[in-house]
């Protein structure tokens, strides 16, 4: 009984968080704001829904793979958000005239000359 209630609460929370991520993706005005919405609410909603399913089905043969998918999404969600945000920041041209040495290591010398001028 209490297991059903907890799993239903987790699955409902996950659905609400996924809906919040989709709504933020739809309504926000900037690429960084959209990353903010999808990066946290999307990953959190996924973890909540999968944890609810895990609690509901108990410890069976297929729950190990669900834990594996959960851990994988928990690890790769921030990596994907960081990569997209970094690529958008480089692509927007905001780092052209500032020393952002990690962007393209081959052009460090040219950037240094520009800074001297």
């Amino acid at each position, binding site marked *: 009984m209490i297991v059903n209630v907890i799993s239903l609460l987790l699955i409902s929370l996950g*659905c609400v968080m996924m809906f919040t991520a989709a709504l933020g993706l739809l309504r926000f005005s900037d690429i960084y704001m*959209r*990353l903010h919405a999808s990066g946290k609410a999307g*990953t959190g909603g996924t973890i909540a*829904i999968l944890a609810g*399913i895990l609690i509901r089905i108990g410890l069976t043969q297929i729950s190990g793979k669900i834990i594996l*998918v959960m851990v994988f999404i928990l690890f790769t969600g921030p990596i994907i958000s960081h990569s997209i945000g970094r690529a958008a920041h480089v692509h927007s041209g905001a780092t052209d005239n500032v020393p952002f040495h990690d962007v393209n290591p081959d052009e460090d010398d040219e950037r240094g000359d520009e800074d001297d001028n």
Partner: protein
Amino acid sequence: MSLYTAVSIILVFIALLASYRLFVGPSVYDRLVSLNVVGVIITIILILISVETDLGLYLDIALSFVMLDFVGTIALVKYLEGGEFV
């Protein structure tokens, strides 16, 4: 209608809502963010199908889908960013 079917239908509508940015996104990065969210929702739907029908096959498909989604997104981002491929 069981719980898993209802959650799957709700998630399909959320994926349709999130895929608006996939079709009319202003930049290509908006489309990538939307594609990430839609891929995660597809993974959850595959796991729900697996639990509903008691077939372990869909879990392997879900695991492979998550890994290929991650690698594909990272490859697209590295291609769009330019410079050297690591």
